[in-house]
């Protein structure tokens, strides 16, 4: 390895050894940091929880008064959770089938309403009046403990 003419009987310079150790130590430290950082980031919880995929926690029991509704996040799409006057939970897609506005629950009509062109859906998501051409997708709702869990229906 050593070039001919270099005296290998000379002891290596202490400076060179220090340099190599510094390089190695520093490199190890930096790699350790770059491995640990993402792990730490992973452990710290993100600002909002999403069960991912086809299920989401839409809220807690007691969040909603009877005859009211609220928007929850289902992936990157809005969903509408309604607690009916008869104390039943209903969950629907909140994206209007007309021109994609976000629908809302109207406690005076007991129906789902789209403010953009006065589209109206019933609590099963069926389009009952106005321009919406199709029903809203409806989801399954289960109460697990004190959580309201909404699940996309399996396509038959």
């Amino acid at each position, binding site marked *: 390895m050593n070039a001919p003419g270099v005296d290998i009987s000379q002891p290596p310079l202490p400076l060179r050894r220090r340099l190599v150790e510094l390089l*190695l130590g520093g*490199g*190890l430290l*930096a790699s350790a940091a770059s491995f640990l950082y993402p792990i730490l980031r992973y452990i710290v919880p993100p600002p*909002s929880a999403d069960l991912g995929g086809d299920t989401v926690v839409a809220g807690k029991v007691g969040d909603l008064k009877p005859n009211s509704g609220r928007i929850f996040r289902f992936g990157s799409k*809005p969903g509408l959770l309604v607690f009916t006057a008869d104390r039943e939970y209903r969950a629907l897609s909140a994206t209007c089938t007309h021109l994609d506005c976000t629908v809302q629950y109207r406690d005076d009509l007991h129906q789902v309403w789209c403010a*953009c062109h*006065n589209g109206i859906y019933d609590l099963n998501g069926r389009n009952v009046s106005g321009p919406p051409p199709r029903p809203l997708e409806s989801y399954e709702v289960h109460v697990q403990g004190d959580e309201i869990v909404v699940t996309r229906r399996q396509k038959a």
Partner: protein
Amino acid sequence: MTRRVLQTAILTLLLAALGSPGLAPPAAAQQPNTCLDCHSEFPEPLGVTREKFAADVHAQKGLTCASCHGGDPTKATPEESMSRAAGFRGHVDRRQVPDLCARCHSDAAYMRQYNPSLRTDQLSQYHTSVHGKRLAQGDARVAVCTDCHSVHDIRPGSDARATIHPLNIAETCSRCHSDAAYMKPYKIPTDQYAGYKESVHHRALAVRGDLSAPTCTTCHGNHGAAPPGVASVEFVCSNCHVFQAQLFDTSPHKSAFEAAGLPACVTCHSNHRVVAPGDAMLGTGPQSACTGCHVEGDGGYTAALSFQRRIAELQTAVERSGEILNRAEQYGMEVSEAKLEQAQARDALTKARVTIHSFQIDQVEKDVQAGLKITEKTYQAGVLALQERDFRRKGLGISLLAILVVLVGLRLYIRQIESGEGKGSA
């Protein structure tokens, strides 16, 4: 004398009652129908094949040729089956068709047994229609029941093959109304169907398959078909376009249009050729609906420009923030929360386009501002997500570099040890 009159009256009533369909239950379908034995062999217009007649809703409910044409289809000889004594009337004159159909269809008690929810006011509606009025004046060229419903293969409107199925109605009307030669004496346009086929209504109905989307009869009525007229066109449109009509009523255009004798809605949107409205209808460009009345220098002209500018600004902002969020998402960044908010910005844009019908800039401005506030936030979220992506990329670069340094360091260290050992063993 009075007795004779009374006797005749009673006799007439009795005969009418006997002849009334309510008292005559439909002949059972299995009874022989000797009419078809011959007429299925005849060419048109006398011919009616068994298949054709079997498709007719009346045949399916047990009615026979005799129900409309009289006679007795159970008799084998033409003399008997088509005898005037058996009430045979043969060919039905066009002018008599509405009354003939109405014998059953205007009889609520009779119709109830077949379809309790079917309306029974078709004839009285027909009398109010342009067709019905002209027929009453002796014009036999106008549409009667059979022209729209077909003759021997009448299907219910729910049947996709029916001439009156929502998807087929426009074509059914166009058979006469697009025939320039046939319509000539009436001096009305014949381009309605061509216009309608380009309309947003037709697209919703035929392309998107929304059977509730409007066709001819939605705006003109069916049995009582007539043009809505200048004064009532707004009511017709507002059956579906509720908000636009409400806003229009509060707008300065309401009284101005009335004063000028201009119909609401169709003045800007046209009638049969209602194309999908776009932002180009605002402003003062070549597709502007405003420049038909407004000229440079007047208030409406300036307003038109501001409407267009504000809507365009929101549209651009929505597109810009949508684009950056999509880009961030493609790079695997978590932006679902921001995308959810982005939907609200799109809502605001849609609402602003509806609010235009108030023709008041401050009302439109409210929606525009609401939208802009959201897009500002979502755009920032997109910027942050991309910054985070850059940070991660740099982090990856640095950690790779660190690993490289370790490898080089290790290599050098090993060499040092080896050289130390080499010296020791020498």
